[in-house]
Each structure stands twice: as C-alpha cells, then as structure tokens.
C-alpha cells in the first residue's frame, strides 16, 4: 500500500516545481543587482502584452543600462488607491494612465515632481492639456459613438437623435462612477446642454441605454456581440477593426455638439527612486518612435505633431471637439456622480 506521506511528498514536489518554474520565468524578477530598476506603474492595457509598454521597455533598456519593471493596476481609480495605500513601498518611479478626471484627486493625494514640458510640439487639441507642471499627456482620444454600417437608415447626428424609439435599449454606455469614458459622456452632455437640461437628457437616455457597463471593455464587448447598435467609444475604434480584423464596417458618428477629448497622462511621484530614468522614459514616450508605438498599440492619437501623418490614423475624419479643456475638482466630480446616482436610483424606484 502506497503511503500517503509519499503521495504528499509527490504532490509537494510537483507543486514546488511549478511554483519555482513560474517564478523563475519572469525576467523582471531576476533583476540584476548592478542595474537600476525603473518601476512603471500603469493600467493593464498599457503594461500588458498587447499594450505599448513592453515595446517601449525593449527600446528603453537598449540604452539605459537599467531594467524596466511594470507594476500593473486595473484602472486609473485603482492605480491611485494603490499609490495612496502602498505609498513608497510600491516604489513607483513613474505613473502612467491617469485621465483629466483623476488629476485633482492625484494632486490632492500625492506629491509629484515638476516636469518641463513647455517645448513640446503638440497638436493644437493637446495644447490646453499642457497647462499644469506635473502631468504630461502622452496620448489622447476623441470620444464618440461607434456603430456598424447599416445599423441606421440615417446616422444620428446629435444627442437628440439618440432618443429615437429605434434605439430604445440599444445603446451601450458606461457607468460614470467606474469608467472614464462613462464620466466623459456625463461631462459631455452637461457641457453641451447645461447642467439642468443635461440631467433631464440623461434621464431620458437611461431608457435608451442597453446597459451602463462598469468598464469600456464590457460596453464595447456588448456592442461587438451585436447586443447594442452603438457604443460610446473613441473615434479611433474603427481603425482597430480596419487594421487588425480587415473589417471596414465600423464607423464613428460625428455629432453637431462637438466631441470631448480624453487625455491620458504620465507623472513622476515625488517619492521616485530613479527619477532621472523616469524622466528619460517619459521622453521616450514623447519621442516620435514612442508616440508611434503608443498610437499603434493603444489605438489612440499621438500628442506630438506629425507622428500620425502617413498612417491610417491620418485618414480618420477630424471631428469638431469641445475645445476648452478643464480639470474638474474632485468635489465637482463627486457632486455630478452623486446626482447621476440619485437619478439612476430614482429610475429604479
């Protein structure tokens, strides 16, 4: 009879081998003592295999005599929470992926290093986002509704067209409390219509929404699976389908009201250990090479002028944007979200 002790040892050996193999796999773990380590804290779609992060790391490590290590957070909200909770022990030298709605909160909760970004040659749409000294935009996107050709007899051209009975429960939206594009939509409507009329409109939109998904990916997944006729996304979304799926059926809808712009920022915490390396990494992100990579991997516009020229991104029609750029205060964001929640809750009662 086989002794159970032997069996336990057998399992332990298999298990430990697996454990050691998985640990040894990661080159990041085997950091060489002599080389400094740049720790970049970012969200999954930047640092993950499909994001721009790994390619930037490869280029950066060629010249820096250092190693780049990514620390992944699920989204910008969780990024900030972890930064606050783990503080210096997280050891983040660079934070990537905050958007304009996070900036005030980030400023209130953390100390950041000043950056010199005044001489960047950026697109006109990006200039307003350079108004602070701590956060530098590295990509941007124009928020828009995306649909498939043939979904509508006449494509919606303004907010009121979205209230058509044909679109009842057919619009995939994001929950502004948990999703950055969702917050962009709320802000978009209020800026375009004013607060009172905006919330009246949003109340009507709640009847039209297929769902308020917690993230952009869930909402876009519902749209991709044809559960919704249109989804709130980016003007650049159809380019993904064109380039990677060879599918030209997707289009972004231009609205008369003008479109909001979402910026993604990078910043260096005051507690950085390899601050100079962090600055050099930002410089790489803002170089033509880095910008091209970010554009191609994230399907967002580059901030630096002339980078998109000669690529499919240059063919994207230029939508009228809202123009002004504002960094709303944390209190203002919370106030609007509370009002949205109250409205949504009332809708259920």
């Amino acid at each position, binding site marked *: 009879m086989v002794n159970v002790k032997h069996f336990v040892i057998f399992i332990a050996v298999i298990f430990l081998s697996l454990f050691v193999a998985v640990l040894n796999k990661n080159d990041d773990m085997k950091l060489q003592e002599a080389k400094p380590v740049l720790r970049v804290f970012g969200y*999954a779609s930047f640092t993950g295999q499909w994001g721009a992060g790994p390619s930037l790391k490869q280029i950066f490590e060629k010249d820096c005599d250092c190693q780049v290590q990514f620390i992944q957070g699920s989204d910008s909200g969780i990024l900030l929470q972890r930064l606050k909770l783990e503080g210096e022990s997280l050891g983040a030298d660079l934070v990537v992926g905050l958007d304009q709605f996070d900036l005030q909160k980030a400023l209130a909760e953390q100390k950041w290093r000043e950056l010199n970004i005044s001489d960047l040659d950026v697109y006109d749409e990006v200039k307003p986002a350079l108004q602070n000294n701590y956060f530098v935009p590295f990509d941007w996107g124009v928020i828009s509704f995306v649909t498939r050709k043939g979904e509508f007899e006449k494509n919606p051209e303004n907010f009121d067209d979205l209230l058509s009975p044909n679109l009842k429960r057919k619009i995939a939206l994001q929950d502004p409390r948990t999703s950055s594009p969702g917050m962009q939509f709320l802000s978009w409507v209020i800026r375009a219509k004013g607060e009172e009329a905006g919330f009246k409109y949003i109340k009507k939109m709640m009847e039209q929404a297929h769902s308020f998904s917690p993230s952009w990916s869930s909402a876009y997944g519902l749209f991709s699976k044809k559960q919704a006729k249109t989804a709130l996304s980016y003007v650049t979304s159809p380019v993904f389908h064109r380039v990677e799926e060879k599918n030209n059926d997707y289009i972004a809808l231009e609205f008369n009201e003008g479109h909001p712009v979402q910026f993604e920022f990078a910043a260096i915490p005051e507690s950085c250990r390899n601050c100079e390396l962090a600055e050099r990494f930002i410089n790489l992100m803002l170089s033509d090479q880095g910008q091209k990579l970010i554009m191609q991997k994230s399907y967002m516009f580059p901030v630096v002028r002339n980078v998109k020229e000669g690529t499919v991104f240059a063919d994207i029609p230029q939508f009228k944007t809202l123009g002004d750029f504002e960094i709303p205060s944390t209190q203002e964001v919370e106030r609007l979200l509370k009002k949205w929640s109250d409205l949504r809750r009332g809708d259920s009662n």
Partner: protein
Amino acid sequence: MISRNIVRSFLLFYLLFPFLFLIYSFRIDSWPNLEELFWAFKNSFIQAFFSALFSLLLGLWVAMGLLSFSDGFRRRYRRIFEIICLLPNFLPPLFTLLALLNVVDPFPMGTIGIILAHTAINFGLVAVLITILVESKIGSLAELAEVEGCSRWQFLRYAFLPILRRDLLLLGLFVFAVCFSGFSIPLIVGGGTGTTIEVLIYEKIRLSSNWSEAVLLASFQSLFIFGITMVARKDVATNANRIVNFRFLRMPSGIAILVILSFLGFYGYIQGVIDGFKQVSAFYEIQSALIWNFLGSVAVGLSTGILSFASLLAIAFCSPSGWRERIMLGYVAPSTSLCCFAFLMFGMNEEFWPFVKIPLALNVLFLGALYRMGWDGILKSLASQIEIANSFGASSWLIFQEVVLPQVASRAALLSGIAAVWACGDYAASRILSHRDLTLAMTIETLMSSYRLGLATVLSLALVFCGALCFFFMTGVGRVFSRKSI
C-alpha cells in the same frame, strides 16, 4: 501532537484577519448614508433571494435528470453532464453573460438581469450538490420505497421533501449568501439600478476613497449573512457512498432541460470561439507568455485548491467545535476588493508574494461558501463516531487519522476542486494583488480591454482546460487520501 485549540485559534484568526486588519488600518470616522444603504440592501436581498429560489428549483429538476445516470453504464456519462453543470463556474462572468445575452434578447439589465445571470451560473452547481445529497441521505430509502410500491409523488411528498427540507434550505442559503455578496455580475449587469452592497463598497473605495464607510458596509453585509445563518438550523446528515438504483427518482426531462439551456447558452460562446480563431495567429508573438500564464493559472488554481483542502481538513480536525461551527456556517469574508486590499497592505507584494497572497485571499473568500456546500453536514454525520472513539480514549489526532480523514477526504477534495476552478477564473482578486498578468484569466481581461474580445474568447478555452485539470487533480488527491492511511 498539534493541539486542536491551536488549530481552532489559527483558523479563527485567519478568517477574521481581513476584518481585524481593515478596522485597525482605517479609522471609522463616517457612517454610510442610511437611505443609500437601505436601497443597496434591498437590491442585494431581492436579487439574492430570487437567485437562490430559481437556482434551487431549476437545480432540483436537473438533479433528477442527473440521477438518471446513477448506476450501471450510465454512471460513466454522468461526469460529462456534471462538467456541463459546472461550466458556468469555470468562465469569467462576462462570457457567461454574453452567452446568456444570446438567449435572452433584449436582456433586462438591473435586478432582473442579475437574478437571471446568477441563476444561470448557479443552478448547475446546485444540481450537482443536490445529487450528492440525495445519494448520501435517501438513496437506500428510495430503493425501499420503490420495492414497497410507493408512487413517485408519494415519495417526494412524504419522504424526499421532509427529509431533505433542511438541507435544501441550507443549500438555498448557500446560494443566497454567494449571490448576496456577489460582485462581478451585479457590477456588470446592475448598471446603476441594481447596485448591491458589494458594488456600493467598490464605489466607496474607487470613487471617494471612503474606506471607513466601505469597511462598515462590508461588516454590515457579513453580519447580516451571519445572522440569517444562525436562524437556520442544520439537520444531522448521513454519509453513504453505496451506489443506489435511482429508477424511482429519475426524471430525464432534467437532462433535457440542461442540454437545451446549455446549447442555447453556449451556442453564442462557440460562435465567439470560431470567430476568435480567425485571429488566432496573433497569439504567435506572445506564445511564450501564454504558456507561462497557463502555468500561473495552474499554480494559482492548485494552490487555492490545496489550501482549501487543508482548511477543510483543519476544520474537520477541530470538529466538533460548538460555537466555532456556527461561526463557520455564517462566515462571509469582507467584499472581494476589501479583502484583497487587506492582504495587499499587509507585508510584501514583490517576487513570489502574489503567488502566496492570491491563494490566501481566495481561500478566505471561498471557505465560507465551501463550508455551506455540505461540509458542515458531512462533519455532523461523523459526530457519533467521534464521540465513541473519544469514549474509548483515542487521541484527537488518531480519531482524525483513522475515523474522519478516510470518510471526508473525497468530499473535501471535491469542494476544493470547485475552489480551484473558481480560482482559475478569478481576475478581480489577482489584479489587485499582483503586479502583472500572472494568469490566463488576467490576460483574458487585458485582451478584452484592448478590443480583442475574439481572442479572449479563444483563450477562455484554455482556461476551461486549466480549471478542469485542477478540478480533476484535486478529486484525484481526495481519492488517494480516502483510500490510504497516514
């Protein structure tokens, strides 16, 4: 020899650790808005109650179908149907939801949608558990009743329901507790109208960094589940493994409904897989990472499985333990995000630590549910044997080794196999506790957040394989432990 009191104290500390650490770390300086709390509580209660009710009803029907495959050559096919039943538990919630959306169009977002999704995910698991319950408690009685000429209706009315009433109630309570504290489905399907306490906790942390209110809400949620579990009383269970002829309880329509629902549900999923295969060449450049992600999933799944197995056996070692059993029966960990943040803030997070912390956190999150899935019943069924062994002066270790372990090992392995499957599909806890994509589930989530739903669907097949591997490994462990002696 290890003292039972030390093990009991350690278990108690381990389970209460997230609460203690969070209360220690965050000063409670504000209280949740009562109106908001009541609204979230109402949503949580309604969705959990109806999810449990419908899961139980549908699960009972399907269980009758599974019993059609309980003897002879049919028993071989039962495992296939059991896997089909457990499949929704293998996949990330979004896949189950997308499959469901193909059947129910338009899908009612909000509380009704949450109930539908929870029922779709849980009825199969309930069916498998009811089958085990019927076989272990009333198998012989069913045979006897058939021989005595009892009709099926009479048996159901006078034997089945009265004997299993409390167990079914407990099973319902298990589903209720799982749904009440569920996170992913209410977050995706709730859409603002169906916000539950769990989602409210997440919003408190993410939006306003209000940890004080988040901890209070989590404590309220756990206390509520604890309270209602205290009200439910557990019957003494029996534990029999004899194969019984269940002709009397067979209901092939149960299998038919399972096959129809699975076909409708997974048709959309299979379509997604076929579409995704068109882009499968994109995996070429990251094949090495995918292999490591697969191993990472196996490591997390097996670690969680083995940890759950050890925890369940530790509970069995401590049994009977009076009031501690009542604690286990009502125990619900704080919300997923809070529990993970507690582990995140405690100690190191580098190098191998995520591989330690993720299984530890998942075990805390799963253990209460596993206990309510029948572990309490099987331990109670051994109480008289333990008492006799005690009166003969056997030590607690000897009793565990010779009496308890051989009888409970296979059930512990089954439950920890389920925990391993859940762990394989987890990305929420792993995302908080790790610094990079360690597992397939995390990579799937990353793919979905970069437009690649098709590839994510293809990759989910590997996740199903990985979950099955861990599940069968754990059940194998149970078989060895139940046959051999230490």
